[in-house]
């Protein structure tokens, strides 16, 4: 508060004058000499009491008027805690507001119910309030993945509308991506003064990452430092039903411990099981359900309070079978000289995929047996029986990924065994003059892998029928142009899974393919496709479910129906908040869960470079002209006093 402001507010001391006037006016009732006064009983002076109340009302109005006058004197100088923008010479600005809508922004301030997101929204509204005609505003949401809530526009009403329609979410945080997106939105705008305002707690799970704003070409103002106060949080990552028990997995941010808290499983309002939380920073808790609670919807709770309440509750879902890849390889031929698992299995293991590997002896002949697999690798199969073909066809139709290595056994398929629906014709196995892959013939993204397969030391190879070769997209070609690795999509309306073929078997004796470093890259590329096609029961919040079936898709979650984004036959739906979702695909409904991201429980803020924190582009304490409000209040007080005095004048005087 400046000295001038204090002087302005000192006008409020004049309130003593109406007080004194009121005291002077507040004379006693008129005193009369009366000989028989001792015969008159004292009585509550009803009329006088009413008069006193009126006097007080009058005094209150007069005092309020004086105080309003003081406010009027000081209001042009009053600075309140709100965000405002600095302008150079009053020029228009282009501003991108990066609004963090991640789960960490659901943390409440100490001792209150206001969340960081609420404060950030208020800050955003304050910024929009200080914007003027001609300013360009863009809004980017920093919850992963970053999204553009509003492209740059000079329509401030549209900006306010977009802001009001922004709900909080439980997503992860991607500040770097959001800032990059914000920069892209405003960097080309005609305004000379362009800036990025970050309204975030900076808790993106990487407190030791590079300082935010480092190397940015545009000024970045990380406003609202109160959002970055320290807080501790624990939450439930998963709650799986395991037979008669429930396994609850907890996670905590740095410095937070779940010790002393309790994990309960409830059916409605009834607590059916409880157990103490782990002593450390998270871990697994196993709870046994009573027999009568064998069925029904269960919800796991982490009792007690912490910064974020939303992640202390999780629906219990039947344990989802871990996504797996089936490996069908002949151990007798593919085993390394040192023994152990087939080299294909060892290679897949070396990739450290987050999917389970299940070696199986043969391609299952029932579709149900393939239902639990995301992908199937088959090494040099002797064709597929009709049952196997049906099973594989159904597997591919639902989006499964198949990798088939063709070798001498494939070429010697018995009668009735074919490779449909992958190949329509038979496969030939014969000598090859090509030593390896041709770099030029590879698909652009596979060029690097192809360079590693230029000398495979293969004496023979499998050759596809010309009709089949045409239907495949060659990823890596032999030096003579024949496909070495090819892929085609198999399934209804092209929405099914992909079938990859490799024209060399994975046996070490057949070629050096499995010995080349590129082999792991090849398998990793296929595994990526597998995971991309997977539709897991539990998924990190914000990560989309991908549906390739091409049929109707509907997803209902805690916040209502989710929007479905379609790209041809592929549909995507990203759950914005944690919870249970009812997913209906082609008329079949199942429950899926969006789980919190452990990194969001780490509420330690990321560092910020010194420059962006400067107040060159904005200020947390703005000078706000509220004179008109105070003047209006003053006029109201004066009018009320006049009305009161007129009303009192109409009343009969009390003697």
């Amino acid at each position: 508060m400046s000295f001038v402001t204090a002087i302005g507010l000192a006008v409020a001391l004049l309130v003593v004058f109406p007080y004194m006037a009121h005291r002077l006016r507040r004379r006693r009732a008129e005193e009369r000499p009366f000989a028989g006064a001792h015969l008159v009983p004292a009585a509550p002076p009803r009329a006088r009491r009413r008069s006193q109340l009126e006097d007080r009302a009058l005094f209150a109005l007069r005092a309020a008027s004086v105080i309003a006058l003081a406010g009027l004197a000081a209001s042009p100088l009053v600075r309140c805690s709100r965000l405002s923008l600095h302008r150079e010479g009053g020029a228009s600005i282009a501003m991108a507001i990066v609004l963090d809508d991640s789960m960490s922004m659901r943390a409440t301030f100490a001792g209150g119910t206001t969340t960081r997101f609420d404060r950030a929204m208020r800050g955003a509204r304050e910024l929009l309030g200080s914007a003027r005609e001609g300013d360009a505003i863009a809004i980017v949401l920093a919850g992963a993945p970053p999204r553009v809530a509003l492209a740059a526009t000079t329509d401030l009403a549209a900006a306010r509308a977009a802001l009001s329609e922004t709900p909080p979410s439980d997503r992860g945080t991607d500040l770097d991506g959001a800032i990059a997106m914000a920069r892209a939105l405003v960097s080309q705008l005609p305004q000379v003064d362009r800036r990025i305002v970050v309204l975030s707690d900076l808790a993106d799970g990487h407190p030791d990452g590079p300082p935010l704003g480092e190397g940015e070409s545009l000024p970045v103002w990380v406003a609202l430092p109160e959002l970055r106060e320290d807080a501790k949080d624990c939450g439930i990552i998963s709650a799986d039903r395991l037979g008669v028990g429930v396994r609850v997995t907890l996670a905590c941010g740095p410095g937070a411990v779940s010790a002393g808290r309790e994990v309960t499983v409830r059916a409605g309002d009834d607590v059916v099981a409880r157990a103490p939380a782990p002593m450390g920073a998270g871990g697994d808790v196993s709870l046994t359900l009573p027999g009568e609670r064998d069925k029904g919807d269960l919800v796991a709770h982490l009792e007690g309070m912490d910064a974020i309440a939303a992640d202390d509750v999780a629906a219990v879902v039947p344990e989802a079978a871990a996504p797996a890849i089936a490996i069908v390889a002949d151990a007798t031929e593919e085993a390394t000289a040192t023994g152990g698992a087939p080299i294909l299995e060892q290679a897949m293991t070396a990739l450290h995929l987050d999917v389970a590997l299940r070696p199986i002896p043969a391609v299952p002949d029932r579709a149900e047996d393939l239902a639990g697999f995301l992908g199937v690798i088959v090494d040099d199969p002797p064709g597929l029986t009709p049952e196997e073909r049906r099973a594989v066809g159904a597997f591919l139709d639902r989006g499964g990924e198949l990798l088939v290595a063709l070798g001498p056994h494939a070429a010697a398929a018995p009668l009735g065994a074919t490779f449909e629906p992958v190949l329509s014709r038979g496969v030939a196995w014969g000598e090859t003059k090509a030593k390896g892959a041709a770099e030029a013939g590879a698909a652009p993204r596979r060029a690097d892998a192809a360079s590693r397969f230029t000398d495979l030391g293969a004496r023979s190879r499998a050759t596809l029928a010309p009709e089949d070769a045409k239907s495949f997209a060659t990823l890596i070609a032999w030096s003579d142009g024949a496909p070495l690795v090819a892929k085609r999509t198999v399934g209804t309306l092209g929405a099914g899974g992909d079938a990859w073929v490799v024209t060399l078997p994975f046996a070490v004796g057949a070629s050096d393919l499995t010995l080349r470093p590129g082999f792991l890259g090849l398998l990793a590329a296929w595994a990526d496709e597998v995971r991309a096609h997977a539709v897991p029961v539990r998924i990190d919040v914000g990560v989309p479910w991908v549906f390739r079936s091409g049929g109707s898709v509907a997803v209902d979650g805690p916040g209502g129906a989710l929007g479905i984004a379609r790209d041809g036959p592929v549909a995507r739906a990203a759950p914005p908040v944690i919870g249970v979702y009812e997913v209906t695909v082609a008329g079949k409904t199942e429950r899926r869960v969006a789980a919190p991201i452990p990194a969001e429980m780490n509420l330690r803020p990321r560092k910020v470079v010194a420059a962006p924190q400067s107040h060159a582009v904005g200020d947390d304490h703005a000078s706000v002209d509220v004179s008109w409000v105070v003047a209006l209040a003053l006029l109201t007080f004066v009018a009320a006093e006049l009305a009161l005095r007129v009303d009192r004048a109409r009343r009969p005087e009390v003697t």
Partner: protein
Amino acid sequence: MTANPIRAALDWGGLAPLRLRSKLVAEGVYAGGHRSARRGAGVEFGGHREYAPGDDLRWLDRRSLMRHERLLVRQFETETDRALRLVVDATASMGYRGSLAPGAKLAFAAVIAAALARIAIASGDPVGLTFLGGGPNVRSVPVSGGREAFERIVAALETCEAGGDALLDGALLDRALGGISRAARRGSIVVVLSDLLDLPVGAADRIAAIASRGRVISVVQTLDPDEARLPFSGTVRLRGLEGGTVVETDADTTREQYLASLRALQNAWERALVARGGRLVRAETSEDPVRIVRSVAEAVR
């Protein structure tokens, strides 16, 4: 500043001049003759009594002496004067004059007293005047008869001022009544003019006690119309003229209670006086003084 201050000088108002006013009042009253209770020289035998040394030997009844061998003296009832002793309350409360009254209570009492004095003197009875309280200029008038006595009484009443607090000064009442109790002879008429509002506790019995020894007493309660009706409305702050009582009240609410208390006070006085053969005459200063004087004359007859 109060609305009706008690003035230092008595507010005579429409009651002045006292002399003329009292004469007019007296002339409006039929006084009639009254028999003296004093027994002494006269023409009508009144009985015997034991001789006491000093008795006039002319009235010694010799026949009774010879018949009964006792010394008896004869007594006669005769037409004679009866002393009128006026006691005027001149305490501070008597200086009050309300808006409905022609003058202060003391002025009204003075008119009544002067009129009674004139009537008594015209009848040949001596008159004395005593003040209860009063300002520094008040002076009592001893019992005397004749034209000069009336003039002295009128002069004393004209110069009197209200003052004194009978509630705080307990000896005030004793000083006023002591002389009368001691000196008033049998058959004397004592008329007390007071508002009776600010007298100390027991004053009714003490004043009524004057009626002993053949004395006749009449008390004229002189009230201002304000005191008789409490005509105020709304919240008023009433300050007693004696005793320092201050009470804040809503007159509309408490009027009935006040009037009931006033009636209770008057009834108490009436009971005390009637028990001694006396009488209470209620007067308001707005009333015609003739009616009051006539009532007093009727009361002491």
